[in-house]
Structures are given as C-alpha cells and as structure tokens.
C-alpha cells in the first residue's frame, strides 16, 4: 500500500517516499504501522529511556478499594501522604490508569470483575499487590471464598506486606516500581 492510497498526494511524491527509510525501515512501513511496530522501532534507539522516564513519572493508579487496605489507599492518594508528588494520581476509571493496586482480598465473585478491570487498562500497565490478602489470602487463608494465587493472574511487580501496610509503605512500594520501570526490570513494560 502506498501513501497515495490514503492521502491524496501526487504519485511522484508517493514513489519518492517509498524509497525513504527510517531506522533502516521503509518510511511507508512505519507510516502505516501497528502499535507493535512502533514499539519495535522505539526499542531500537535510545529514545526508550525517555519513554521509560516519562512512564515512571506518571503512574496513575486505579482507585479501587476492595478491602481494609483500600482505606489506606484512600489516604495514600489524598493530601496527607500526597502520592501526586510522585506522579501517582488516583483515577476513577481503568481506562485512564497505569497501575492496578490490588488492595485486599479477591473472592470468587470478584475475580472475574477484577480481571475485567485489569483488561480494560491500556498498556503498558503494572500491578502492585498490597497487604497480606492480596499476596496470599492473609487472615482469610482458609476461607471458602478467597482465592490465593493472585500472582498467577496478574503480573505483580511489587508486593507490599502488612495488614494493612502504612501509607508510607505504599509510597516506598511505588518508588520501587518506578525504579523497576527505569531499570527495565518490570514484568509488564515493553522497553
């Protein structure tokens, strides 16, 4: 497919353009490319560091309290602990978020909903498990309704133990995640 199929340009320019390259690839390929292609191209150059720097500093999290730890998440996102300082702002819809904070127990009934929320989040995305419940079932380890293998479903980058962890621990966990993103050691990021 040439550019002139999409945008009305003189045929001569179209032919000219097809000879151009960027990072060793034909421009036309790059022009009509998929997100995946863009990712590949970005990965080739030092620009990925800039991308990661940007991502690390704008990790919006999903306000999604689902347990006692959720109340601490409220406080973490509000003025007293002020996660905004680290570019971590609470959002109400999964479509605007980068980080899923798993803030409590996942029950049989909630797992499909939770998975759904996770899948609605745009890539790249990260997951933080907060509290004993999200990590391993916590005090409810023998309940008939709590699932314990959360790590099988979600690529959890940071585990924050505690019941509930203090908001300061939330901040520490967030900074760990940022460090991981920066060093490209996170499970879910691309670059």
């Amino acid at each position, binding site marked *: 497919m040439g550019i002139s199929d999409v945008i009305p340009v003189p045929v001569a320019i179209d032919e000219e353009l097809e000879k151009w390259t960027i990072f060793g690839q034909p421009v036309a390929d790059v022009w009509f490319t998929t997100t995946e292609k863009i990712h590949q191209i970005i990965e080739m150059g030092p620009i990925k560091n800039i991308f990661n720097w940007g991502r690390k500093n704008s990790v919006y999290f999903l*306000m*999604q*309290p*689902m*347990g*006692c730890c*959720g*109340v*601490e998440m*409220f*406080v973490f996102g*509000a*003025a*007293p602990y002020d996660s905004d300082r680290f570019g971590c702002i*609470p959002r*109400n819809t*999964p479509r605007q978020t980068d980080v899923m904070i798993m803030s*409590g*127990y996942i*029950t*049989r*009934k*909630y*797992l*499909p*909903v939770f*998975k759904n*929320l996770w899948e609605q989040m745009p890539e790249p995305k990260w997951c933080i498990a907060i509290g004993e419940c999200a990590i391993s*079932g916590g*005090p*409810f*380890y*023998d*309940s*008939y*309704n*709590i*699932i*314990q*293998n959360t790590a*099988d*479903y979600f690529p959890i980058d940071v585990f924050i133990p505690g*019941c*509930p962890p*203090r908001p300061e621990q939330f901040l520490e966990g967030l900074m760990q995640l940022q460090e991981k993103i920066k060093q490209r050691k996170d499970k879910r990021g691309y670059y």
Partner: protein
Amino acid sequence: MTTASEVLSSLQSAFPGAIKDPRVESDARLWATVDPKRIYDVCKYLTDKLNFDHYSGSAGVDWIANNEMEVVEIMASHGAHPVVAMLKVRTPRDNPSIKSLTGLYWNADWYEREIWEMFGINFENHSGLYPLLLSDELMGVWPWRKDFKGYPDLTTGQRAVALPTANGYTEFRIPPTPAEIEAGTVPKERPKYPSFREREEAEIKSDSEMIMHLGPQHAMVPGPFLLDILVEGERVRKGFLDVGYIHKGIEKIMENRTWLQGITYTDRMCYVASLSNNECYCGAVEKILGLEVPERAQYIRVIVEELSRIQSHLIGTGEFLTLIAGVGYAPWQYMIIDREHVISLIESVTGARLTHSFVRFGGVRNDLPDDFAEKCKITLPYIKSRINEFIELFAQDPIYDLRMKDVGVLPAETAKEVGIAGPALRASGVSYDMRVEDPILVYPDLDFKVITGTKGDCADRIDVRLREILESIYIIEQCLDRIPSGPIKPEAKVPKKVPAGEAYYRVEDPRGEMGMYVISDGGDKPYRVKVRGPFYATLQTLPPLLEGVYVADVVAIAGSMDGCPSEADR
C-alpha cells in the same frame, strides 16, 4: 415501661404451650424457644400488641449434635421499650424448613436469604430465595453448616483457574479438586433459580427502558457492590443490588479460631469502625464470662470508640461529597486531612491506624499514653472548629441545597418499617441510638444528646453525621475530665475456655445498630458468631429508596448512606 418478664408473661398467656425454655436474662433480654408452627403468630402478636416494631435480624445455628437446625429471630423496638426478644425456632436437620416472616417484616428478606444459602434452611412462603452473598458455584454447599466438608483443609490454598467458555470468553473459577470430590464437598444437586442477570432483565417491560450498572467497582465506596438501576428516560424505575463481592466468610472462620484470635477478625469486618466491632464482640464474650470491666478501662473504651466514630463520619462525609461533586477532590482532601489528626490520636493509644484489636475481654490492651489528654486538648477543638465550618459552609451553599434538599426523602414511618439503621434512621427523626437504648460501659453517666434530623433527606443525613461528631467530641471531653485511675484489665486471668452460654450484645457503630450473637459450647473456640451489621440493614433499603428518583440523584442517595460493603458482606 415494659420489661422482659412482662413480655414473657404476656406471651405465655396469649400462646399457652407455644413458648418453651424461657429465660429472662435481664430486663432487656428475653430468650425463648417458640413452636415452629406458631412463630408467625407470635411475631405478629409482639409487633401489634407489644410494640416490637423493629425486626433486627435473624441468625441460623446448626446444632449438629441434636440433629437440629435453629433460626433465632431477633426482635426489638424502636424506642418504645428496651427489650430484645431472641426467639428460637427449631427444625429437624434433614430437610429443614420454617415459616418465612417476610409477610410481616419487609426487611426479613435478606436475613432469610442469607440463612438459606449458608445453612440450606428453606423458608416457606418466601417469594424469592436467591443467593445473596455466595457465588453460584458455592450454592448447595451450605458452607456454614457444621459438617461443611473440607473446611479448613481443603479450602486452604484455593487456586482459581481460567476456563474458556463456549461463547469465547474466559471464566475464572475454582474447580473442585479430586480430594474435594472424594470428600463429597461438591454437592450432587444444586438449587435452581434464575440468575441475577435474568431476574433484572425480566423486569424490562418496554423498549424505552434500560439497565445501568453502577459498580461493582466504585472509586469512593470502601468496597465493591453492584447497584443496577432500571431507567426509563431520566427516572429510575427499579433498583437491584448484588452484594457479596468481598464475602470472606468471617463468621465461619471465627468458629475455627480461638476466642482471642476472633478479635482480629472483627477488626476486618468494618475497617472504618474496627473499635466498635471489637467492643461488640468483646462485650458479648464478657457477658458469657460474667466479667466486670474496670472503670478506667470502660472510660478508655468510650474514648477510643468515640474517636473512631469521628474518623468514620469524616471519611464517610468526604466520600459522599466527592461522589456528588464529581471531579472535585477538594472537600475529600480537607476531610482526610482532619481525619489524619484523629487517626494519629487513636494510633497513639492503640498502635495501629485501622486494625486495632485494642479492646480485650474484660479491659483494654494498654493504658492511655501520658500526654494523651494534652494532645486531645489541641486536636479536639481544632476538629470542632472545622466541623462548625463545614456545617456553615453547607448551610450557605445554594448548589449543595439544590442538590441535596428533598432528595431521597425517607419518612420516619417508612424508615422504621424498612429497618434502616444509624444516622440514616435518625435523620428521619427517629431517636434510636444504642448508646441510649441499650446502654453499655459508662454511657449512662455521660451527658449527650441523640442527634436527629427532621425530614430524612440527603442533607439531613449529612447534617446528622456532622453534628454527631460534635457530640462525640463533647463525650470525649467529659471522659477525659472524669477518667479515674486504676487497673485496665481484670485482676484474674481471663480463662481460655468460655463456659457454655449465649449472649447478644449491641453497640452503636458509626453506621448504626450493630449486634453480635455469640454462642459458646464450653470450648476454646466460639460455637457460632452471628453479626448483625448496620450497613447490611441500610443497604437493603436502597432499591426501594431509589424508585422514581432522577438518575443524577442515585449517587447522592447511595452515597449519603455512608457505605461499608465489607461489613455487609462479612
């Protein structure tokens, strides 16, 4: 004033032979076993003749040794007298079935559905026995029965798997393991009923109606629940609730923990009001043990519980303001900043921010720190000035007025009938507060008012909450003035085993009347703990309250109830 023994004699004369093993525990508690055939009539008599107009819940108990199931109906009155009647109905264990009380009390619906799904007790004449808290795959397992197989060995370490469905989606469920199938945990036959989705879709009558989902994920409610509304244009025609998204089975787990370990689970029931839950459980156990709480410990308990009420109301109001203001987080930030001051006060006493486990059987864990009174002298006036500021702000704001006044009005009569609890009930003008009705600790010596509203609209509910904070501050100030020195724990060691017995204890949770019904069989673990949560009662009233309102008011009404779904789900 009516007392328990008067109620009993009146019942015995009206229903000769139907009342067995009566026990008058005190002026305010009556225990009796009622003939299953007469339970409906007995309750009707209590309601019509003896002012028992508050159906406070019911509890299922599995007496496996006697091969019997029991349902305990908890009946009280909205302020006419302080008697709580605990009426037990027994039914054989194979094929258990008793009469439903839904014809008498509107709010019996959820309590009976819960007992049905947990114990498998059938309720005759109940119009819709659908699961409430459990997911479909657990139906028919009857998890709260004592012979629920596989608990706790097989339920520990449950692993969910993803299974593709026929229509291309993926399902996540916990499949039965071979061990479970062998142990017989998986029921061979399951009850049949239409699913939640089918039930709500059956209500769609015309093309102009549609269903809107609110939830299960809410940004500003501390826990998930699903509120579906059937809308026709701008109006809500019907509301549907699906709860149980964070049902943890606390009542079952507590049966498998020692008495002391149980305290930590009460923390996690409603984590915004953990101290009241601690108090409720410990109070019930103290009643069975016959423990006296030293006076200093009583004062300390009152102080921390009132502090806990302040922080709970602050977070509740903040959530509500965020819900109605949409994008603006400003009021929320202010309330959370103020709440942090209270939290740090509580933390200086209990050592924890949310999950305190501070109240112990017969006392408290530790004494107040030395500088506590001074800290209070700084913090409390500050909170007071802030609350006055908020009240003034809301009174002046014309937009708040438009949005809140005459929205979600709940008249006093209806409020009593539907069994709504706490500030939402008091906003309708019903003066019903456990601190006055069923006084515990040193509350009778303290001077405080029960705050009531007039109309019962959203503005009233918020106003009642804010003024209750001022009242709590007043209570704490009195306590700090009067607190005596002395021990904070009982002198003798609290025994590990609690003698056989039962008790029902009520406290005023920030969300309303919370009751715990604790049964001991003489062992080192509870035989049964039943929690009657206030938000459970309040949540149930949401769908009728939403009928006919504008879509935009739905969040305002639901938010003004100050939700804590975790306590409803337990």
